[in-house]
């Protein structure tokens, strides 16, 4: 266990290697949020609610969704690159499980991302954008649990891209597709409740809304009580299914591995 924690720490060190880049990320996410904020203000110009959501709820939703949307990507791309240029060979001759290592690296970069982006963003959001507080302490607690589950799902799901690289060799197109699907079905762009009902139905059967929509809706009170617990249970099921699926795919991939570039 210790070695994986050390890997996570080394990733934090890597993230801080370039100072200017580090702070540029903080600035850019705040910038992005301000634009989204202005956009939704403009949309609400002549009305007080959209699909039963008042402006303040919408702003709260969007700010938190932007924040969580930052965590949905993972280290699948890194694995895909290593497969493509052959450096995965060096990883495979080390005494660790590469998937666990990647999850550790992801944890590291998410910790540094939290300090770099989430904290400044929350500060600005509470002080200047006046987003709502959670409806109760309980919903805050459920939000945190649900958000963590959502982040774990994101990490695992992203590994699929990396593993597919063993078969497809080049996965750039797949990553673009993934980004599009995620932006839409995770609920980063708009709350899932604004979809037409058949699309909501489709979304219910996909793991993506567990990553952003579910935790944020628990925070804003759109999902509460028993429904919130149910939603968290579904997240758990997805997490387990995805982890098992990925480990299976990995054991196949590793057997057919071809190392490129001599």
């Amino acid at each position, binding site marked *: 266990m210790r070695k994986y924690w*050390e890997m996570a720490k080394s990733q934090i060190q890597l993230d801080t290697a370039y100072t200017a880049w580090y702070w540029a990320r903080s600035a850019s996410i705040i910038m992005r949020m301000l634009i989204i904020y202005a956009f939704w203000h403009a949309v609400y110009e002549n009305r007080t609610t959209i699909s039963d959501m008042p402006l303040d709820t919408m702003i709260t939703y969007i700010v938190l969704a932007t924040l969580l949307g930052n965590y949905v990507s993972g280290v699948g791309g890194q694995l895909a690159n290593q497969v493509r240029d*052959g450096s995965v060979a060096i990883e495979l001759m080390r005494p660790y499980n590469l998937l666990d290592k990647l999850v550790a690296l992801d944890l590291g970069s998410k910790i540094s991302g939290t300090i770099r982006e989430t904290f400044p963003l929350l500060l600005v959001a509470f002080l200047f954008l006046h987003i709502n507080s959670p409806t109760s302490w309980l919903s805050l607690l459920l939000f945190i649990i649900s958000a963590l589950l959502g982040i774990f799902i994101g990490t695992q799901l992203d590994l699929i891209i990396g593993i597919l690289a063993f078969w497809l060799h080049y996965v750039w197109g797949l990553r673009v597709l993934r980004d599009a699907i995620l932006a839409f079905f995770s609920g980063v762009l708009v709350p899932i409740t604004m979809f037409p009902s058949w699309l909501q139905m489709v979304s219910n059967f996909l793991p993506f809304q567990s990553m952003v929509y579910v935790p944020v809706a628990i925070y804003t009170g759109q999902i509460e009580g028993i429904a919130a617990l149910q939603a968290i249970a579904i997240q758990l099921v997805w997490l387990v299914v995805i982890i098992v699926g990925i480990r299976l795919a990995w054991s196949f991939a590793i057997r057919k591995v071809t190392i490129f570039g001599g």
Partner: protein
Amino acid sequence: MIEVKGLSKYYKLVEKKPGLSGAVQGLFARKYSIKKAVDDISFVIDQGEMVGYIGANGAGKSTTIKMLCGILTPSSGEITVSGIVPYKERKRNASNIGAVFGQRTQLFWDIAVRESYDLLKHIYEIPQHQYEKTMDLFTEVLDLGPLLGIPVRQLSLGQKMRCELAAAFLHSPSIVYLDEPTIGLDVAVKVKIRQFIKEMNRSMNTTVILTTHDMQDIEEICKRIIIIDEGKILYDGSIQSIKDRYGHKRIIHFEMEQEGEFTLPESLLGKAEFTAHEAGVVSLSFSNLIITAAEVISEMLRFYHIRDLTIADSRIESIVQDIYERGI
């Protein structure tokens, strides 16, 4: 101890037809061909041996090494490394081995070299006191002191390779695979690296398997070589015996006092061969099974005024080149 029996690895290659139409066709229907990267090889390497594993580019060296590391699964055949089947127990095998791939780095690119070693310490679970002892030794032998605080991206190739080598030996592995560890290095660094490898072998009884195109490396480090070509083993034995078998060809270059026509002395006819005559230098080649170098020289001195002469060594380099080109 490494045992390899009947080992083969086949690759499936996608064959694409040339041109744009070929590219489009390739999107729908594909043709495959089979490449035998390693074809039924067997050998045994004992603990503490230093073996040169050589062959032309694409001969199957790296593929073999990767199978020994457990990264590639063989198509057929058996491997055991210290009693472990590498591809079945990759992680257990991994803590036993170290490797340098001359063309890839295993250190962090963006942060100080020291941090890479520190992480390796945790990955291989090296006890702190042992780690400190090894680091002290390596710092001294490889002169790493001034490099530890610098990120890899700012190191020169030679500095980088010294750091890589230390990384490969850090956890005192019983086997180390070195894939072109001296590629692109200057002579001084090469010497340092060879010394280090020999020192490690002496003090820790580390088994070293070295692939390289630099025959000087092989001659200085290894006693035994395995030559592989097109996936098959051409030669497996000591360097001395390959020299005895093929190394009887000698060349002597004579620098003549006077330029001009040269004809071979009659007593040398049929025994030595006149190979070149350039800028006043005459080169004779002969086999020392038929005639000794001393005889050739004394014959030449009888007929010509010689200012200087050099006897070319029967280098392993030319022998190996011969074997690549003509087979064994």
